[in-house]
Structure formats: C-alpha cells, structure tokens
C-alpha cells in the first residue's frame, strides 16, 4: 500500500495539471464545461492530494526517504533529473497545502458564484496547487527552482486575474518583478553552489544538486566553508527565501498582492507562495549550519521584519492590509525560529499560521458592507489563535519560547502582544466603521471555516496530549493586549502618536522609497541607454558636441570605431565624393593636368628613391 501510493504519488501531483489543461483547452476550443463539473474536478484533485499525503504520512519515519526520478536534461555527463522526493517534511508541507487549498477552493465556489470566467479561475487554482506541490516534492534544487518560478508566474496570473482593471494588473506586475529578484538570486545560488560542490566536494552531478547530495556533502565541504564563495551562496539562497516570504527589504510586494481576489489572498498568505521561503530555508539547513553568520542574519531579518510589520499593522485602517503585514510579521517569527535552529517551532508556527490565516481572510467583510456576527466571532477566534491565546497558535508559541533565552523570550512576548493588539484593534476599527449585522451566513463558507477550525483544534489536542509544554509568557502578553485595546479604545478611535503613526502607517515608507529610488533609477538608466542609443549610435552629431566638452578621446572612439562603421564610411566617401566631383571640371585640359601631375610626382619619387638607393649602396660599400 505504502509502496503503491509512493510510486504513484506523481499521478496525484499531476492531477491538478490535467484538470487545468482540461479546463483551459476545453474552454479555448469552445467546448462547454459545466460549472459544477469545474468545481467538482477541482475539489476532487485537492481531496485526492489530502488523502494521499495524509495516508503516506504515517508510514514515513523521520529518517525515511523515498525518491525516484527520470533524466529531464541530459548533456553528456551533465544530467538534471526530475522526480519525486518524499520524506516527512515534504509530506507535511504538501498535506497542509492540499488541505488548505481544498477548503479555500470550497470557499471560492461561494465567492465566485456570480462572477465571470470561473473556469479560468479554478483552472489557475489547480495549476497553483500543481506548482507548489511539485516544489514541495522535488528531489533537487533545480526542480525546486523550476516550480519556484512556476509558482511565481501562476500567482502573477491570479493576482492580475481582472486584467481590464489597470490597478490590479499593475499590482500583479509589481509582485512578479519583485519576486523575480528572488528568483534571480536563487538561480545564481544554484549555479554557484553547483560549481562549488563540483570543485570542493566529490559530488559530480553538476547542476542537479539533489537534496540527498546536499545532506551528504555538507560534511565533506566543512573545510571550505570559510571561503567567501560559500557565504555568498548561502546569502543568495537566503535572499531568495526572504523575497518569497516577504521579509524585510522586500516585504512590500505582499501589500500589492492584496489586489487579488479574496480566496487568492487567503491561499497566497497561508500555505503557498510565502511558505516557499520557509520551505527552502529548511531544506538548505545543512548549508546554513555551516555558516553561522547567515543563520544569525536570518534571525536578525526575521526579528526586524516581525517588529516593523507588526508596528505597521498596528496603524492600518484597512483590514486586508493589516492581514498582509501580519503575514510578514508571522513569517519573520518563523525565520527567527529557524535562525535559532528551533525547527519544530518553525514548523508549528507555520502550521498554525497556515490554518489560521485563511480563516481570517474568509471572515472579513467586503468593503463598505456590514459585518455579520458569525463572521465577526469567527474572526475573533482566529485572531485569538494567531496571537497565541487559543489552540495551535498558543501551542506553537509555547514550543518556540520553550527553547529560548530571556532576550528571545522577551522579543517573542512583545511580538505576541503586538499581534494581539493589531488584530483586536482592526476588528474594533472595522466594526466601528460599518457596524455589525445579523445576516445570513453562507453554508459553504461555514463549511470551509469549520474545516480550518476543526483541524486547528484537532492538531492542538493531538499535540497537547504528547507534548510537555506549558503555558508561557506570550499567552499572558496577548491577553494583556486584548484587554488594553478595549481600554484604549474610545469613541474617537485610537490616539495617533505623531511621527510614529504615519511612519508605521506607510510601512516605514519602504514602498515609496522603492518607487522613487529604485524604479526612478531604473527608469533613468533606461532613458539614458535609450539616449545613448539614439544619439550616439544612430546619429553622431551629439558625439561631436560631446568632444567639444573635452572628452575628445572617448569621442574619437565613438565616432571612428564604435559609431556606425558603415555610416562613417558613407560620410567619408561622401566627403571624398565632393572632391572627386570637383576634380571633374568638364575641361579636358584639367584631366590631362592631373595625369601630368601624377606622372611627375611618381617619376620624381622614383628618381628620389633611386638616388637614395644609390647612396645606400655607396654607404654600405
């Protein structure tokens, strides 16, 4: 049974891809596809994923690895295999992924009820599942990279789903391009590390870089880890991870991703796109443990992000934005956990977040609509859980704090306080803005939310039974925060601290900084290149002007060597042509005169050369 599922797991992974193809091609070739069928197929694929991965989970002890592959690229001895690598971690991530997407797809059915282009939406959701699952189960870094990119593209397509709305499409573009920075770093990391391993470790698989090799070779390369190249490699991988997980210098894309539809946001924030960073970091831990400075910096980045984003979240008035900042903050916490090598905590935090975040997203009201009581209550339950008061959220914090020193404990406590603070605050602000109402609740929504809740509680209960952790400081901090928000809240809203409030509200102006400095510089470079192109390469008059400014040598090269070899010849021959034309005087006597002159010149040269030759002979003689 175990073997059977393991061998055929790739079929489960490919199922979303098939469904994507069926939906897209079916629609493209104008075959009518029933909506119900669309929904059913989508849910089916996710459900199959959940069943298969959860079924496998219990067979896999922490040390067991199952792997198979076929050669995707083959150039002589350079082989890149594609395949499936199953171990506990990948199963854990995949099962969470499938579970969360199953519930979110369920929610999308109600969300998309009256909207157009459902088939495309669900098809893309399927493709998204495929790319993320493929990444979690990939046996080597190269395949990871392939799916990493694919995930970026699908998220781009999902965020820019409504392409006729300019704002949304621009946001999608921005998200994609910022993610591309991470991809670039990833590819650079792959290239350099494969070179590094090829040079210094007996791993001769060139670029494929299987995780198995990374585990084994990390022992062998120990002697070379002081080389700057190794540090650079680790830094590059870390960059890729922090871009995807929306950490400090790059977290701004997550705000833009909020332009997406609600289910998509829920999916992006929980177990898919942002989770990739954590996954990659966990996979590459054998490298990072060899470079403590990189781990330290991951910790610092995590903590900084957590603080900056929490503070920013505290000052938002838009619910979605608050949730976006909160995601960054939570993932900062996970990086913190990884940085101090508390893997259990990181995974626990991840699971908690993956199960809670979609719940929060699903329960928030639409814009300018009243909040339904049921949703409000469920939102508060989710918020409590996220800030560490209830269920898995509480437990994950406990696991984390358990291993930390006092400084760490303090930091986590403060962060818990802030989390609880902004969740409560935004709930209050939202209710105050539009008010609460007793509305009908959609059955499907309740179904999906309860799914999240049940799993949340279920895992909590399961872990609580076997765990030895006890209630820790973050719990109390969160409780304090909940109470303090209610106390601080007045009819006029919250007091806004000057300077700090606007700073936090704008996300520490990082986005504006990027837009002005980075994008501005980029545009300037592009304009400059274009200017160079049109003025220097296509027209050399400004080059002459340039020479007057004093850079004559540069200009000479421009004019004579680089600048249009042909046009130089053409213009030169035009100048000679003028002379040639002037020679043609129409009077035959002139023509003979040229002949006379040339003959005289050549004969006299001849005579002079002869005389010189004679003199030379005499001198030698």
């Amino acid at each position, binding site marked *: 049974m175990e073997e059977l599922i393991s061998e055929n797991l790739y079929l489960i992974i490919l199922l979303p891809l098939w469904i994507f193809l069926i939906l897209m091609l079916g629609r*493209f070739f104008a075959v009518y596809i029933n909506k119900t069928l669309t929904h059913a197929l989508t849910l089916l694929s996710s459900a199959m994923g959940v069943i298969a991965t959860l079924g496998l989970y219990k067979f896999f002890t922490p040390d067991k690895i199952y792997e198979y592959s076929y*050669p*995707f*690229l*083959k*150039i*002589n001895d*350079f082989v890149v295999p594609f395949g499936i690598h199953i171990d506990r971690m990948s199963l854990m991530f995949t099962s969470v992924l499938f579970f969360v997407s199953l519930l979110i797809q369920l929610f999308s059915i109600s969300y998309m009820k009256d909207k157009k282009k459902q088939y495309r939406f669900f098809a893309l959701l399927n493709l998204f599942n495929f790319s993320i699952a493929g990444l979690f189960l990939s046996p080597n870094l*190269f395949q990871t*990279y*392939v*799916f990493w*990119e*694919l995930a970026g*593209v699908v998220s781009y*397509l999902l965020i*820019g789903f409504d*392409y*006729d*709305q*300019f704002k949304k*499409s*621009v946001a999608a*573009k921005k998200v*994609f*391009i910022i993610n*591309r*920075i991470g*991809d*670039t770093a990833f*590819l*650079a990391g792959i*290239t*350099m590390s*494969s*070179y590094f391993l*090829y040079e210094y470790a007996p791993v001769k698989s*060139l*670029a494929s870089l299987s995780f198995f090799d990374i585990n084994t070779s990390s022992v062998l390369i120990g002697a070379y880890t002081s080389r700057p190249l190794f540090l650079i490699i680790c830094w590059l991988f870390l960059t890729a991870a922090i871009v995807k997980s929306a950490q400090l210098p790059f977290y701004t894309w997550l705000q833009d991703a909020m332009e997406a539809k609600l289910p998509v946001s829920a999916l992006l924030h929980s177990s898919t796109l942002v989770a990739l960073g954590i996954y990659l970091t966990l996979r590459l831990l054998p490298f990072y443990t060899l470079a403590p400075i990189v781990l330290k910096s991951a910790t610092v980045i995590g903590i900084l992000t957590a603080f900056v984003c929490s503070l920013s979240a505290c000052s938002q008035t838009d619910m979605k934005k608050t949730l976006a900042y909160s995601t960054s903050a939570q993932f900062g916490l996970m990086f913190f956990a990884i940085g101090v090598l508390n893997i259990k905590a990181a995974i626990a935090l991840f699971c908690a977040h993956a199960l809670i975040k979609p719940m929060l997203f699903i329960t928030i009201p639409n814009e300018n609509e009243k909040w339904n009581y049921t949703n409000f209550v469920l939102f508060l339950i989710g918020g409590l859980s996220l800030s560490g008061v209830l269920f898995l959220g509480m437990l994950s914090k406990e696991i984390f704090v358990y291993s930390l020193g006092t400084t760490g404990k303090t930091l986590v406590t403060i962060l818990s306080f802030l989390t609880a603070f902004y969740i409560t605050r935004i709930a209050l602000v939202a209710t105050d803005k539009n008010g609460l109402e007793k509305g009908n609740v959609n059955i499907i929504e309740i179904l999906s939310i309860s799914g999240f809740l049940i799993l949340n509680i279920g895992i909590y209960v399961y872990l609580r039974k076997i765990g030895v952790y006890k209630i820790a400081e973050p719990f109390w901090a969160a409780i304090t925060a909940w109470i303090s928000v209610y106390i601080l809240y007045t009819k006029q809203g919250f007091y806004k601290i000057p300077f700090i409030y606007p700073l936090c509200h704008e996300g520490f102006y990082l986005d504006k900084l990027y837009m002005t400095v980075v994008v501005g510089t*980029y*545009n300037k*470079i*592009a*304009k*400059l*290149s*274009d200017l*160079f*192109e049109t003025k220097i*390469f*296509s027209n050399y008059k400004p080059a002459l002007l340039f020479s007057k400014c004093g850079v004559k040598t540069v200009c000479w090269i421009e004019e004579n*060597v*680089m*600048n*249009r*070899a*042909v046009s130089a*010849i*053409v213009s030169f021959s035009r100048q000679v042509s003028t002379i040639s034309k002037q020679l043609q005087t129409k009077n035959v006597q002139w023509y003979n005169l040229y002949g006379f002159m040339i003959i005289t010149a050549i004969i006299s040269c001849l005579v002079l050369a002869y005389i010189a030759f004679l003199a030379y002979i005499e001198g030698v003689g």
Partner: protein
Amino acid sequence: MDILISIPFLVFFPMLASFFIMSPLFTNNEISIRRFSKSIFGFIFLYTIFLLVMFDTANPFISKISFFGLDWIQALGVQFSFKIDGIGMILVLLTSFIFFISAISSKMNIRKNHKFYYSMLLLLMSAILGIFTASDMFVFFMFWELELIPAYFLIGGDFSLETNTEAKKSAIKFVLFTFLGSMVMLLGILLLHYYSYMTSQTLTANFSEIFTERIPVIIKLIISACFIIGFGVKLPIIPLHTWLPDAHTNAPTPISMVLAGIMLKTGAYGIFRFNYQIMNDVFQIFAPVLAIFALVNIIYTAFVAYAQTDIKRIVAYSSISNMGLILLGLCAFNQIGLNASVFHMTAHGLVTAGLFMICGIVYLRCKTRDINTLGGIASNMPRLFGLATLIVLASIGVPAFAPFISEVLTVISAMFSNLGIVLKVSAIVALPLLIISSCYMLKFLHCGFMGEKQEAFAKINDITTHEFIVLASVVAGLLLFGIFPSALLGMIG
C-alpha cells in the same frame, strides 16, 4: 534512399520555385500565387521533418554536387558540398518552420506585388537553408551574400497599402552594414584558405578538412577577428547593431519574423562554425572578450528596450539582448554552452517570431504601435491576449517554455567554463536579465493589452484562424521543447 535524402534538393527547390513564380509563365493571380507558395513552404517543412526522421546523429547527411565530374572551382579547391549535422538539422527545421508560418501570416500583411514578394521569400529561404547546410567556406559565403538581395527587397519593398519611406532607408542601412561585415568576412575566408593551403598543402575549403594547426597565431588572430566582425554585424554584437531596430521595425510583419527568427541566428551559426569549430584554439583567447560584449548586449539592450515606446522596437531590442545570451553560451566553450546556445537559437527563434506576429496583428487592427495609446484591447481579443500572455511569459524565461531551459543552461555553462574568471563572473552578471526582461516584456503586455477599455479600439475583432494557427503552433513548439528538452538536446553532438 540517397536520392530522397538530398540536401541540394532541399536548398535549391525553393530557389527553383522562386524563379518559377517570378517567370512570366506563372499566373498573376494573387490567390494562386499565395496558395502555390504556401504549399511549397509546407512541402519543405514536411520534407525537413522527413529528414529529421531519417536523421541519425552519428551519420550526418553529406552530399556533394559535381558538374560533369568536376568540382565547383577547382582552382580554389572549392567543392559544392553540403552537410547536415545535428546543429544544422535543428536550424534547418527551425528555418522551414518559421518560413512556413511567416508565409501563412503573409496573407494579412501583404497586399501588393504578390509575385515578387513570394518569389523573394522563397529565395531568402533557399539562401538561409544554404547557409545552414553548406560545408564549404566559399559555398557558405555565396549563400551569405545571396541572402542580402531578397532580404533587401523584402525589408524595403512596397508590399502594404500605405507607403513606408522609412522602410527603404532601413533596408539600405541593413544591406550596407551586412555587406561591410561580409566583406571583412571574405578577407578572413581568403586568408584562412590561403594559409591553410600553405601550411598543409591540401587545397580545400571544406570545414572539416581545413587545417589550422600550423598557421601562425598572429595570422589566426587576424582571421578570427575578421570572422567575428563579419558575423558580429549579423548577430549583432553591440556597436554593430544599429541596423537591427530600424530594419525590424520597418519591415512587414512576416519579414520581421523571419529576420529575427532566423536571420540573426545565421550570425551565431557562423561564429560557431568558423570561430568555435575551425579556429577553436584562438577562440579560447577571444571568448572572454566576447563574453564581455555579450554581457553588454544582454544588459544594455534590455534597458534600451524598456525605454522604447514602439512595441515592435521593444521586441527588436529584446532580440539583441537574447542574441547576447546565445553568444555567451558559445563563449563558455563547453558542451553545455553549445547546447544552451543552439537551444536558445531555436527557442528565441520561435518566441520572437510569435512576438513580431503579435505586434503585426495589433498594428493591423489598431493602426498604432505606440505603447502610450494602446491598451485595453485584451477584453476584445481574448484569444490573442491568451496567446500573447503565453508567448510573453515564454520570452522572459518561465518554466515549461523552451527559453527557460536555455537561459538556465547558458548561465550554468558559463559558470563551468574553463576559460577563466571572466566567464564565471559574466554568468552571474548576466542573471539580472531575468528581472530586466520581465520589466520590459510585462510592460509590453500591460500597456499593450491590459487596462481599461478604450473607445478607439471598441470595434476591433479577435484573431482570424490563420493568425491563430500561426501563434498556436509557436506556443506548441515552445511548450514541446520546454517540457521535453531532450528531444532537441539529443541532437546536438
């Protein structure tokens, strides 16, 4: 079997068809001209597929034409000989494919002088097939020169309803640039031929028989430089590139597809044949320098492309940028690099043909190519938009499409190159292309298609079946090679 697998037939059949169409014997009826030439292109495409099926990497096709038992020019040891090896096979296949789809797409763009247009298109195909299959330097050079004549007429010709005066200028610019390059190349060929004869005493111009070992290094350097300049104009390497944006922008759409899809590759192919294969020891000296040029190509033109407002110019500059990547792969001077380079030739050939096709379709319907006035046509043309999205994503190197494979392979090959630190550094420096290319290509997609609907473009129609077939086949090709790269890589020796 020998008669069936005949390279001269492949090369000269389009030429004969071209003369036949041009001759007064053939009708002036535009529909029959179009159908006839389309069927010729289709036939050649099928024939190349047939060749592909027959092809065996270990035994490349070789054939030689002798006239009454004599060689072509015995005084120079020139034989009219042809050879298709793995790389040649791939490029021949690409050529026949791109020409086929450009012939299909000609229906919408070509409104006048059909007879002349199609015969020139066939002649151009014949010349390019000749370049890819010639195994003798002088025969290669002959086809290289022959290519200029039809290319000139196709770029500058009078084929659409509105007259384009810019087109003529850019056609002349193109011809002068390329001719200058080919003259320098001729110098190189003559020198190589002479010195090979002097040192080895065998009078030959065959690629596989040229013997360079005993030629003095300084001469070899000169010869290599000549070749690099000659092919660098076509490739184009940066300071020699200014003909390209003009020619590509002003040419009719099918011709832009051919120019960017195939013609640029002849430059890369030339560098491969002459510098990489024949002058390989000197190429190792040149490679780091060329790699720097390739980097300039990649990064600089990517920025320039971003600043363009004409969608066709964006695509044109992106071609230069991608050709830099191909050059970088060659400079790596290892097996992976060669594979990456040839793979990227194919991939980029398909992508750029598709992109120019899209530009042409948009221009045909909106009558503008300015990025600031375009926009919002996606909802009117969902099918075009879907295909355009796929091709744009392919062009920026998204997995599952062919360019992704070649981009990654290029970077890896440069990293594993034995030619010093320069190439390793350039592997890393070339990487931001991923970011910059996505900037300009997404700008192309967003400003061209997405956004709010505009009044001006409210009535335009979606693509016709012809156009759909062209674009869909491009996408299919990209997906095919992106998902099964081994299909292509297996053929490159």
